């Protein structure tokens, strides 16, 4: 069964007791159902990453207008002098 605290730390989440119970209940039901995968013979089957046959898409090396720095930063919770602002990262 899922050791949920390990995945909370990996996903940078701190769940409430109620959330933990809810997620555990759903996750455990799903994990039990995943066991059925073992029954399927996939010997010599390659994983399918995309349903499309993807090819490199190339274009002429010409500047294309993208969004401006101001527009990019306009959704930042905090910014300073044209940069994203974060708390001090080194003591």
């Amino acid at each position, binding site marked *: 069964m*899922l050791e*949920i605290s390990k*995945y*909370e730390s*990996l*996903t*940078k*989440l*701190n*769940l409430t007791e109620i*959330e933990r119970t*809810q*997620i555990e209940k*759903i*996750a455990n*039901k*799903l994990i039990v*159902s*995943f066991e*059925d*995968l*073992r029954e*399927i013979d*996939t010997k010599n*089957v*390659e*994983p*399918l*990453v*995309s*349903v*499309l046959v*993807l090819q490199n*898409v190339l*274009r002429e090396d010409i500047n294309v207008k993208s*969004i401006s720095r101001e*527009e*990019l930063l*306009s*959704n*930042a*919770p*905090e910014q300073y002098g044209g940069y*994203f602002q*974060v*708390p*001090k*990262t080194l003591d």
Partner: protein
Amino acid sequence: MERFVRSESAGKKDAVALEQCIMEKGKPATSGSKMLNNFTAPFDAEVVSRLNATDTSIAGRVEMREFAVGGSFFDTQFGSPAIEALLAGDAGFALCSDVFGEIRSKAPMAGLAYIHPTYGSVSRYGLIPLAASMDQIGVLCKGLEAGFQLLSKIAGSDLKDGAMLSEKEYEYTKINRRLRIGIPTKIVALASEADQTAIKSFCANFETENIDLTHFEIAKQVMTILAFAEASNNISRYDGIKFGYRANEYKNLEELYVRSRSEGFGLPAKLAAIMGTYVLSRDQYESYYEKAMKVRRLIKNSFEFDKYDLIVLPLSISDDAYENLSLYALSPLAGLPSVSFQYEGQGIQLIANSKDENALITAWEVAQA
């Protein structure tokens, strides 16, 4: 959260509502999450640019389940704001993202139809992603003919979406071809009697062939594993720094991440993050994630469109929403187009071969006649 945010064109017959995951410049795009409550779209999604270029009005924005993580996993009722907007006359169409089949399952019961186009035929530029290998913008409509007309305005290759088919445009039209419908009898037998009667009556208009969809039952597991894996990756970008919700109080960078994500995400996003990280973890990667990708190939190869043009499916085979997920997983997993609509009072789903949307329109029109 408001279920429908009106634009000036709301109420116009042909106006198009947009789910909150499709960006319209200068408007909020929440993707149904508190995480993006204060997010304003910095540019138009490609589908929005194409609607604007064809003078198609935008009715407003409809709320959605958080990041479109489907209802198959939760007991809570959410309804469908997109369906409500059409029923209320606020919009004639809605553009939606429906990986888990939530709208495909509900639209026919409301007398509406839903078109899930061939993977790679509609640009996802400006669509807030859930699971990129399956994400596809689709059309909620009152009738399939008008729905496909709208689809033809937005479909066609776009360099800004890296996973697209090469066709520049699509003309969706009725064709002169005798259609053969594949009936997966074992699956149809699990539907209600009323559904079975409607399917039988629908298929009476066509040549039919009884078929066996191998790996059908396992499709729900494959979709769940792959969608959560991709979703956990996609929502890792919400860190409280570049955009989206940031917690008010934090002592250091780690706390900023954890508090912002814990307060900003709802249960659907948290479930997707945890399950996705679990199936991608070193211990589980081979038995779940890689295995699911292999079975996905088996599912994709199991269709035999040389024997039939379309597959008919019911919209429900169980009272358990998760069991029903297999019905909706097939077309996103294999990248195939599908429609769901009402026929003789019951919901029906049709799946066609890649780029064979015209078989879907034709079948629908033949059955209406």
